[in-house]
């Protein structure tokens, strides 16, 4: 028996190490997936939000209603200010349309507009269309734990896969260990310089779950410039039909 023991323990360590490391990498992806599902994984949602765009010399606030179904469909209706009221955005799969009531025109957003900020914010149209890619397009790994706003978080590094259509060189996310909340995200360029930071704060219970109700996007190299989105209220798993997300409906929305 005595002779076998070292072998056994060695085997045990190898097995342990192996399962530990594989569990670890799987974990990171799992965490990202859960955090992503928190936002996008529900069957449907309906909410109202307020977006404040802060620029060095001016500031403006836009209010909108938003409906989503699965990951593929979403509808946004601007409710304030009066100038933009009634404008609607429809996303179906990888395409996006914009209804402008002031000129009675429906525009399909062309590729050339994808990199523009949505309604002049730091949030690009492209961000809206490609939201799900943090799970598919990246390799994930846990690089530490940190505490943010009193929440114990995993610090997870996302490196884009070789052929992925991702402009970032690296993304670092802080995701809370309980509730899987995305507390903070940092986007880096290919030389690992910070480009922008996303912050999730003011964790509130909405509908039946805890989510950050205030999202901030802060570009790194532009002083006094940021975009703040606050969720005024949101309901998950509401009854909503596929047919709701149609061009005809964009014009009818109130």
């Amino acid at each position, binding site marked *: 028996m005595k002779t076998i023991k070292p072998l056994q323990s060695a085997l045990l360590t190898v097995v342990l190490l192996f399962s530990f490391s594989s569990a670890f990498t799987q974990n990171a992806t799992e965490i990202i997936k859960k955090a992503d599902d928190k936002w996008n994984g529900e069957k449907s949602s309906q909410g109202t939000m307020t977006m404040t765009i802060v620029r060095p010399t001016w500031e403006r606030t836009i209010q909108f209603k938003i409906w989503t179904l699965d990951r593929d469909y979403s509808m946004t209706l601007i409710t304030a200010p009066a100038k933009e009221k009634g404008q609607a955005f429809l996303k179906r799969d990888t*395409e996006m349309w914009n209804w402008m009531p002031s000129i009675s025109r429906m525009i399909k957003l062309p*590729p050339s507009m994808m990199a523009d900020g949505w309604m002049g914010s730091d949030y690009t149209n492209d961000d809206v269309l490609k939201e799900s890619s943090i799970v598919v397009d990246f390799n994930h790994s846990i690089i530490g734990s940190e505490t943010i706003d009193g929440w114990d978080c995993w610090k997870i590094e996302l490196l884009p896969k070789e052929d992925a*259509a991702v402009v970032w060189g690296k993304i670092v996310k802080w995701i809370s260990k309980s509730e899987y909340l995305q507390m903070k995200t940092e986007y880096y360029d290919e030389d690992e310089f910070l480009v922008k930071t996303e912050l999730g704060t003011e964790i509130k219970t909405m509908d039946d779950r805890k989510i950050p109700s205030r999202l901030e996007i802060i570009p790194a190299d532009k002083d006094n410039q940021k975009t703040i989105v606050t969720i005024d209220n949101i309901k998950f798993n509401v009854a909503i039909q596929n047919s709701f997300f149609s061009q005809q409906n964009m014009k009818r929305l109130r």
Partner: protein
Amino acid sequence: MIWNISWKNVWRNKARSLVVVCAVTLGTISGVFVAGMMNGWVDQRIRSAVYTEVSHIKIQNPKYLINEELKHTIPNITEISDFLNNSDKVSAWTKHTKIIAMASTSRGSTALNLKGINVDEEIQVSNVKDFIVDNGGDYFESGFKNPIVISEKTADQLRLINYIISQELLDSITDLGADANLISSLSSIKNKRFITEKKFKAQLESILKPNDIKELGAQIMKLAKNYKVRSKIVFTFSGMNGEMSYQSFRVCGIYKTNNAMFDQMNAFVKEENIATVAGFMPNDYHEISIILKDDKENLTSFKDELSSKFPNTSVMTWKELAPDAGMMADFMKIYYYIIMGVIFFALAFGIINTMLMAVLERIKELGMLMAVGMNKKRVFSMIMLETIFLTLVGSIVGMLLGGALIVIFGKIGMNFASVQEGFEAFGWSAMVYPSIDLSFFLGVTIMVIIIAILSSVIPARKALKLNPVEAIRTE
């Protein structure tokens, strides 16, 4: 006889004749040189229009010209290929796919014409390869996945040009004679990355003395410039079926031609790297570019041949595709003669004046000649020949010197770097290599003779009106 007398008459009052000869010489030199400069310029524009931008003849789907949608590919491409391969007028040809796509990096984005090319064929037709900038990578030679060649302008818009003060830069600046103060102030920002030229300039201006910037600023800018070859660019575009597609490329080379407009719009990728994502079938191409063997002779005839053979395509020559260059090519020849005409018109007054003086001075002599039986025709031609000799001497010397200047500057080039940006915005090179056709000199010579004949009319009439009897008696 008359020729001999006229030639001798010219040199009777050497000082006066030489003044006119000098004036004509200077006028001719400037005229010839300006014409040579413009001609060199236009030539360069045409060369770059043809060999960099549009080629001699381009075939497209006529619908594509109206609406640049991907589905408007060239019909009957196999027949066109066969025809071009078998034609002895064609020197080289190639096919492109063309997508208008949005390029983005983490820091910038811009719209581009993404041209899918076959590299081996492309280098026979286009010389973009020769315009790869120093340290700007290469033209599809590095063997990594999904390479793309973009312009310096695009690289700037996508923030793929950084400015970094490196140790090497400090060393070479020291070699250029920078003092220790300058080096130490530069060292303070050593290895710091600046993503725009503007920010780097501002930083330099804040840490360096104005004198140093004047002396070495341009050098520092040049050495600090760092092209981020191998960076990733993500392209967004509507594919064949109208759906939004994404594809990422890595920068392989960065080029800079003389035409800022061309640079701003065009990026090149290997056709096989874009075809699948965009949904192109093997024979889907948007344009065929053709370089002819003898373009002066065959351009229009070959175009007509193609249009009649393939009536459902649009065939255009470079004169239509780059109308500015086409217009220049046709118009410039006339323009040179207009320049010369204006110069000689001004000179004509000087010539008339001099010849009038020569006639009035020799009233007695002319009266004598007429009295001994020299007829009016001969008197007239004598004065006319005098004028022609006078002018021709000046203009021949002028053409020789002007021609020499053109040859010299044609070798070393003239640099208009101070106004480079403005020139290149119009597609004109800032480096000008003057050149001129020999036929231009023949034209100028004929023009000089005509001007001389015209300006001899007034003095000659004056001479003809003389009454020999009275003329002899004048003192």
